[in-house]
Protein backbone atom coordinates (compact mmCIF):
# COMPACT_ATOMS: atom_id res chain seq x y z
CA UNK A 1 0.00 0.00 0.00
CA UNK A 2 1.21 3.49 -0.82
CA UNK A 3 0.62 7.10 0.12
CA UNK A 4 -2.32 7.25 -2.27
CA UNK A 5 -4.09 4.50 -0.35
CA UNK A 6 -3.42 6.20 2.97
CA UNK A 7 -4.77 9.49 1.63
CA UNK A 8 -7.91 7.78 0.37
CA UNK A 9 -8.36 6.04 3.71
CA UNK A 10 -7.78 9.20 5.73
CA UNK A 11 -10.24 11.13 3.60
CA UNK A 12 -12.81 8.35 4.02
CA UNK A 13 -12.39 8.35 7.80
CA UNK A 14 -12.88 12.11 7.99
CA UNK A 15 -15.86 12.07 5.66
CA UNK A 16 -17.47 9.37 7.79
CA UNK A 17 -17.00 11.40 10.96
CA UNK A 18 -18.31 14.53 9.25
CA UNK A 19 -21.39 12.75 7.89
CA UNK A 20 -22.33 10.76 10.98
CA UNK A 21 -20.59 12.22 14.02
CA UNK A 22 -19.30 8.76 14.87
CA UNK A 23 -16.19 6.67 14.23
CA UNK A 24 -16.29 4.32 11.24
CA UNK A 25 -16.29 0.57 11.69
CA UNK A 26 -13.60 -1.49 10.05
CA UNK A 27 -16.23 -2.97 7.77
CA UNK A 28 -17.38 0.45 6.64
CA UNK A 29 -13.84 1.53 5.76
CA UNK A 30 -13.12 -1.78 3.99
CA UNK A 31 -16.17 -1.19 1.82
CA UNK A 32 -15.38 2.45 1.06
CA UNK A 33 -11.73 1.96 0.09
CA UNK A 34 -12.09 -1.55 -1.35
CA UNK A 35 -9.43 -3.14 0.82
CA UNK A 36 -8.97 -5.98 3.28
CA UNK A 37 -9.06 -5.54 7.05
CA UNK A 38 -5.28 -5.97 7.22
CA UNK A 39 -4.80 -3.27 4.59
CA UNK A 40 -7.09 -0.83 6.38
CA UNK A 41 -5.42 -1.51 9.73
CA UNK A 42 -2.01 -1.06 8.14
CA UNK A 43 -3.19 2.28 6.84
CA UNK A 44 -4.32 3.26 10.33
CA UNK A 45 -0.85 2.43 11.67
CA UNK A 46 0.86 4.60 9.07
CA UNK A 47 -1.56 7.49 9.58
CA UNK A 48 -0.95 7.28 13.34
CA UNK A 49 2.78 7.48 12.70
CA UNK A 50 2.12 10.64 10.67
CA UNK A 51 0.03 12.06 13.54
CA UNK A 52 -3.07 12.25 11.37
CA UNK A 53 -5.29 10.03 13.52
CA UNK A 54 -5.24 7.74 16.56
CA UNK A 55 -6.68 4.24 16.11
CA UNK A 56 -8.26 2.26 18.91
CA UNK A 57 -5.96 -0.21 20.68
CA UNK A 58 -7.13 -3.07 18.47
CA UNK A 59 -6.82 -0.99 15.30
CA UNK A 60 -10.42 -1.85 14.48
CA UNK A 61 -11.70 1.71 14.73
CA UNK A 62 -10.65 5.29 15.32
CA UNK A 63 -10.16 6.84 18.77
CA UNK A 64 -9.24 10.27 17.47
CA UNK A 65 -9.33 11.88 14.06
CA UNK A 66 -8.69 15.39 15.29
CA UNK A 67 -10.84 17.33 15.91
CA UNK A 68 -13.31 14.42 15.99
CA UNK A 69 -13.43 11.92 18.86
CA UNK A 70 -14.48 8.33 18.31
CA UNK A 71 -15.73 8.03 21.89
CA UNK A 72 -18.12 10.23 23.91
CA UNK A 73 -16.47 13.11 25.74
CA UNK A 74 -17.53 16.17 27.71
CA UNK A 75 -16.73 18.36 24.69
CA UNK A 76 -19.51 18.34 22.10
CA UNK A 77 -20.42 20.33 19.04
CA UNK A 78 -23.56 20.42 16.96
CA UNK A 79 -23.43 21.46 13.32
CA UNK A 80 -26.41 21.34 10.95
CA UNK A 81 -28.29 19.04 13.32
CA UNK A 82 -25.54 16.46 13.75
CA UNK A 83 -23.86 16.01 17.13
CA UNK A 84 -20.11 15.42 17.33
CA UNK A 85 -17.77 14.56 20.16
CA UNK A 86 -14.46 16.39 20.31
CA UNK A 87 -11.20 15.35 21.95
CA UNK A 88 -10.74 18.51 23.98
CA UNK A 89 -11.76 22.14 24.31
CA UNK A 90 -9.69 23.18 21.28
CA UNK A 91 -11.17 20.41 19.19
CA UNK A 92 -14.74 21.37 20.15
CA UNK A 93 -14.08 24.66 18.38
CA UNK A 94 -12.20 22.69 15.74
CA UNK A 95 -15.22 20.59 14.82
CA UNK A 96 -17.19 23.74 14.04
CA UNK A 97 -14.24 25.22 12.12
CA UNK A 98 -13.83 22.01 10.10
CA UNK A 99 -17.51 21.92 9.20
CA UNK A 100 -17.91 25.43 7.86
CA UNK A 101 -17.57 27.73 10.84
CA UNK A 102 -21.12 27.86 12.19
CA UNK A 103 -22.38 25.65 15.00
CA UNK A 104 -22.83 25.20 18.72
CA UNK A 105 -20.29 24.06 21.31
CA UNK A 106 -21.18 22.47 24.63
CA UNK A 107 -18.69 21.81 27.40
CA UNK A 108 -18.07 22.86 30.98
CA UNK A 109 -15.75 24.60 33.41
CA UNK A 110 -13.47 21.83 34.57
CA UNK A 111 -13.39 23.11 38.15
CA UNK A 112 -16.98 24.19 38.86
CA UNK A 113 -18.69 22.04 36.20
CA UNK A 114 -20.66 25.10 35.11
CA UNK A 115 -21.99 24.36 31.62
CA UNK A 116 -20.58 26.22 28.64
CA UNK A 117 -22.84 26.67 25.62
CA UNK A 118 -21.65 28.82 22.77
CA UNK A 119 -23.01 29.57 19.33
CA UNK A 120 -20.10 30.04 16.95
CA UNK A 121 -20.06 31.80 13.62
CA UNK A 122 -17.11 32.50 11.33
CA UNK A 123 -16.62 35.72 13.30
CA UNK A 124 -15.80 33.63 16.39
CA UNK A 125 -17.11 33.92 19.94
CA UNK A 126 -17.70 37.14 21.77
CA UNK A 127 -15.09 38.06 24.39
CA UNK A 128 -15.90 36.60 27.80
CA UNK A 129 -14.18 35.56 30.98
CA UNK A 130 -13.95 31.94 29.87
CA UNK A 131 -10.44 30.61 29.30
CA UNK A 132 -8.67 27.80 27.51
CA UNK A 133 -5.93 26.04 29.46
CA UNK A 134 -3.64 23.16 28.59
CA UNK A 135 -1.36 21.47 31.10
CA UNK A 136 0.95 19.98 28.46
CA UNK A 137 3.33 22.31 26.57
CA UNK A 138 3.15 22.33 22.78
CA UNK A 139 6.45 20.52 22.36
CA UNK A 140 5.04 17.49 24.19
CA UNK A 141 1.48 17.32 22.89
CA UNK A 142 2.04 14.16 20.87
CA UNK A 143 4.05 12.38 23.59
CA UNK A 144 0.64 11.29 24.90
CA UNK A 145 -1.97 12.88 22.67
CA UNK A 146 -4.90 11.20 24.40
CA UNK A 147 -3.89 12.75 27.76
CA UNK A 148 -3.13 16.10 26.10
Amino acid at each position, binding site marked *: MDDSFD*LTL*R*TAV*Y*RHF*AATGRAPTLEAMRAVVGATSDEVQGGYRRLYAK*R*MLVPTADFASIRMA*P*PFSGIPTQHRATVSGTEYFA*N*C*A*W*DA*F*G*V*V*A*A*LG*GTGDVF*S*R*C*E*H*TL*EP*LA*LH*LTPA*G*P*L*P*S*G*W*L*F*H*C*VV*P*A*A*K*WWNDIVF*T
Partner: protein
Amino acid sequence: MLFFRSEETLNDWCTATEHPRRPTATLPQLWQMAVAWYSNRLSPQARRPDANEIRQIFARIGLTDAFWDPQADKF
Protein backbone atom coordinates in the same frame (compact mmCIF):
# COMPACT_ATOMS: atom_id res chain seq x y z
CA MET B 1 -7.07 20.96 27.01
CA LEU B 2 -9.93 22.32 29.05
CA PHE B 3 -12.28 25.25 29.53
CA PHE B 4 -12.44 27.31 32.71
CA ARG B 5 -15.01 29.92 33.70
CA SER B 6 -12.43 32.39 34.99
CA GLU B 7 -8.86 32.86 36.16
CA GLU B 8 -10.11 32.13 39.68
CA THR B 9 -11.63 28.75 38.82
CA LEU B 10 -8.53 27.83 36.83
CA ASN B 11 -6.24 28.72 39.71
CA ASP B 12 -8.44 26.79 42.16
CA TRP B 13 -8.38 23.74 39.87
CA CYS B 14 -4.60 23.86 39.53
CA THR B 15 -4.25 24.02 43.29
CA ALA B 16 -6.79 21.25 43.93
CA THR B 17 -5.37 18.89 41.31
CA GLU B 18 -1.69 19.88 41.66
CA HIS B 19 -1.48 20.57 37.95
CA PRO B 20 0.87 23.36 36.85
CA ARG B 21 -0.68 26.69 35.94
CA ARG B 22 0.14 27.31 32.29
CA PRO B 23 -0.43 30.27 29.96
CA THR B 24 -4.04 30.61 28.84
CA ALA B 25 -5.85 31.61 25.68
CA THR B 26 -9.08 33.56 25.41
CA LEU B 27 -11.98 32.03 23.52
CA PRO B 28 -11.49 34.38 20.54
CA GLN B 29 -7.84 33.23 20.43
CA LEU B 30 -8.96 29.61 20.68
CA TRP B 31 -11.29 30.14 17.74
CA GLN B 32 -8.39 31.46 15.66
CA MET B 33 -6.36 28.40 16.66
CA ALA B 34 -9.20 26.11 15.64
CA VAL B 35 -9.63 27.80 12.27
CA ALA B 36 -5.89 27.68 11.57
CA TRP B 37 -5.64 23.99 12.47
CA TYR B 38 -8.89 22.56 11.25
CA SER B 39 -10.69 24.68 8.65
CA ASN B 40 -9.32 22.53 5.80
CA ARG B 41 -9.09 19.25 7.73
CA LEU B 42 -11.68 17.51 5.56
CA SER B 43 -9.72 18.30 2.40
CA PRO B 44 -7.48 15.59 0.94
CA GLN B 45 -4.76 18.24 0.90
CA ALA B 46 -4.96 18.74 4.67
CA ARG B 47 -1.75 18.32 6.66
CA ARG B 48 -0.44 19.22 10.06
CA PRO B 49 1.42 22.55 10.13
CA ASP B 50 5.17 22.17 10.59
CA ALA B 51 7.03 23.69 13.53
CA ASN B 52 7.68 27.04 11.86
CA GLU B 53 4.09 27.30 10.73
CA ILE B 54 2.89 26.50 14.24
CA ARG B 55 5.07 29.28 15.64
CA GLN B 56 3.70 31.71 13.05
CA ILE B 57 0.11 30.75 13.84
CA PHE B 58 0.55 31.26 17.57
CA ALA B 59 2.50 34.49 17.07
CA ARG B 60 -0.23 35.87 14.82
CA ILE B 61 -2.78 35.10 17.52
CA GLY B 62 -0.63 36.68 20.20
CA LEU B 63 0.52 33.49 21.93
CA THR B 64 4.28 34.00 22.10
CA ASP B 65 5.22 32.32 25.37
CA ALA B 66 7.70 29.42 25.02
CA PHE B 67 4.88 27.16 26.21
CA TRP B 68 3.39 27.38 22.71
CA ASP B 69 6.68 26.65 20.90
CA PRO B 70 6.51 23.15 19.38
CA GLN B 71 10.26 22.67 19.80
CA ALA B 72 10.91 24.44 23.08
CA ASP B 73 12.86 22.53 25.72
CA LYS B 74 12.02 24.96 28.50
CA PHE B 75 9.19 22.90 29.93
